């Protein structure tokens, strides 16, 4: 099994599925000869040709709309948006059309499409290149929003997203693109959507996260382990629809929960999970549900982005608060 980075896993999943299924095309800005600004589509033009690897004009509304049009004709469109901050022009198309054609036409026209984009900061990119979009999309009915946290999950979840009969927003953790490698076998096996992964079992506290923050969450859990605290880590993976049951089960066991996300705190997806606990898990909680999240400011320019993005120390800080209130 080759040891590959997350961006290579994304590339592998697309190549693999394009080989398997001739109805898959990829489209986006600079994805052809250039292989995408992050090289996610490297080699696809040479292997599959310009008909299936479509360089689009510089127009994100068009990219989303084109994916919609293609998918209604049975072409599985996998669109790339270069940076998460440039997904906003897709919002109208996604919420008013991609998620609705099936419902509006009673199943006559459907949108088996994926919009992929890097998500989040941490690589010192220019302004508007480091936003976190998951909650904006996850609030939209009829959508799936998926965020992998490792090369293996990127491969398996992207396969699942492409094969899914409904539109999927696939948000890749920019910061993890090249941070570490993992053995990933190109076996064409998708991972399940709509389900959280127990990333690590534990008994004292449940740490819930997704995407790039999973990395810091794992490091925080290592430190907690060294202190004798056993953290269970849940990788949400499919943000929407949310598999709250897995989280509830874990919290029923641990009685404590901290949710870690990079996107702005107010109205973020961490709040959705905390609300689920406030409704269904209240009686199992020993302590308040804490959220570690981006502040309610725009992502600062590169010099201050680390002020914004939660890190291990902030995670540990909130975990300590929980244990202060509800000692082990």
């Amino acid at each position: 099994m080759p040891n590959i980075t997350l961006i290579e896993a994304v590339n592998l999943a697309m190549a693999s599925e394009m080989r398997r299924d001739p109805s898959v095309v990829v489209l986006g800005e600079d994805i052809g000869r250039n292989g995408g600004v992050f090289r996610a589509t490297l080699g696809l033009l040479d292997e599959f040709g310009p008909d299936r690897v479509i360089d689009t004009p510089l127009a994100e509304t068009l990219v989303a709309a084109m994916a919609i049009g293609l998918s209604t004709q049975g072409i599985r469109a996998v669109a790339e948006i270069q940076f998460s901050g440039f997904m906003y022009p897709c919002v109208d198309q996604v919420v008013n059309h991609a998620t609705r054609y099936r419902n509006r036409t009673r199943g006559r026209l459907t949108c088996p499409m994926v919009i992929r984009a890097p998500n989040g900061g941490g690589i010192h990119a220019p302004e508007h290149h480091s936003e976190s979009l998951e909650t904006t999309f996850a609030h939209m009915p009829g959508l799936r929003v998926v965020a992998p946290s490792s090369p293996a999950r990127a491969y398996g979840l992207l396969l699942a997203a492409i094969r899914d009969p409904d539109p999927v927003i696939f948000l890749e953790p920019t910061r993890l693109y090249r941070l570490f490698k993992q053995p990933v076998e190109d076996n064409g096996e998708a991972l399940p959507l709509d389900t959280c992964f127990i990333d690590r079992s534990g008994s004292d506290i449940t740490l819930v996260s997704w995407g790039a923050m999973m990395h810091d969450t794992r490091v925080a859990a290592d430190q907690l382990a060294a202190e004798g605290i056993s953290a269970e880590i849940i990788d949400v993976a499919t943000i929407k629809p949310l598999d709250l049951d897995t989280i509830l089960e874990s919290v029923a066991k641990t009685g404590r929960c901290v949710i870690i996300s990079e996107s702005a705190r107010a109205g973020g997806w961490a709040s959705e999970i905390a609300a689920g606990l406030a409704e269904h898990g209240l009686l199992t909680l020993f302590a308040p549900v804490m959220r570690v999240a981006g502040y309610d400011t725009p992502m600062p320019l590169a010099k201050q982005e680390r002020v914004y993005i939660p890190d291990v120390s902030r995670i540990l800080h909130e975990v300590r608060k929980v244990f202060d209130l509800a000692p082990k």
Partner: protein
Amino acid sequence: MLHCANSSGKNRVLPSAIAKPAAKAQAAQPTVNPLTELSSATTKVASYDVFLTRYLNPDGSLAAEPPAFAKDRDTARAMYELMVRTRLFDKKAVALQRTGQLGTYAAVLGQEAIGVAIGHALAADDIFIPAYREYAAQFARGVPMHSILQYWGGDERGMAYPAGTPSHHDFPLSVPIATHIPHAIGVAYAIKLKNERRVVLASCGDGATSKGDWYEAVSSAKVWNLPIVFLVNNNGWAISMPSHRQTGAQNYAQKGFAGGITGEQVDGNDVIATRAVLSAAIERARDGGGPSLVEALTYRLHDHTTADDARRYRPEAEVTAAWERCPVKRYKAYLETAGFWSQADEDALIAAGTAAAEAAAQTFTATQPQAPEAIFDHLYETLPKSMAWQREEVRARGPVGGGH
């Protein structure tokens, strides 16, 4: 101190122009002058023309020798029948709304010729991506009249166009203005990818051409030489905004130049011209000639929708004058002159069309309500497990008051 540069109507080619055919001989002058004085430093590098096509004068007399289809008795009659049936349907729909039996409805009064032309110009396999007033085209393609009533009556089932008809692969009405137009790019790309000989017709109003979505499609269509016809129904108004204040453009056809595609005008109240121009554009696209834009000049004789009161913003005299250019009257005069139509034909058509509209109304009002939990049934292919409780909650609760 602000003023509308275009309110003078100078250099405009707007719906009012369709009343007075331009003199053929007079060569059109450049409508937009270059910024700089022509000097030895400045060279002309490109030039673009806009053309207008019309066969029938407003009184139904011939402005030019008509194309073959208009001389074919059956075809010529079928087009008229569809136009009148649509007008009778429209009248019924408005009546239903006025008596509280239908929600807001967007009437097509005065614009029926365009829908008829679309319906007759498209091949069955072609794909129609409509705005929300081209009922005639939808009827021609197999959408039952009661489906349109269901849609405006607030029932999603009105968008489930019947299997076995061309409409089954067409798109439903699109209310968010212009957002459906770039779907044509994806659809047409898929057609080329599959090596099919199909054409996409994507239509909208004059107001819609102000939106970025519309433009992103027009700007890009020729990049892949896609088989698309962009149709702009210029009915003179976007709700209360007259088309000459909607944009700085002197006409809507020239907006095609921004995408390097042909843009031309047609008298949209002349069903012969509209069908001829659309057919040419469609067949050219089918033969690999690429995308084009057609601006059909027409007039909205009705309020914007039944929720609107156009008297607030529109002079009655303009509407009265527009009735003189009515597409039905005009085409009927042509048919009569051609010997294709009699009073008996007219009486029979009105009786049949009225009955059809009535029957559609009855099918609509007799429609059984959907189960409340049906709101979940086409959300995803399979409802996610985590949402089952929501559907169950709705089901257990049963019908809620307040349906229309």
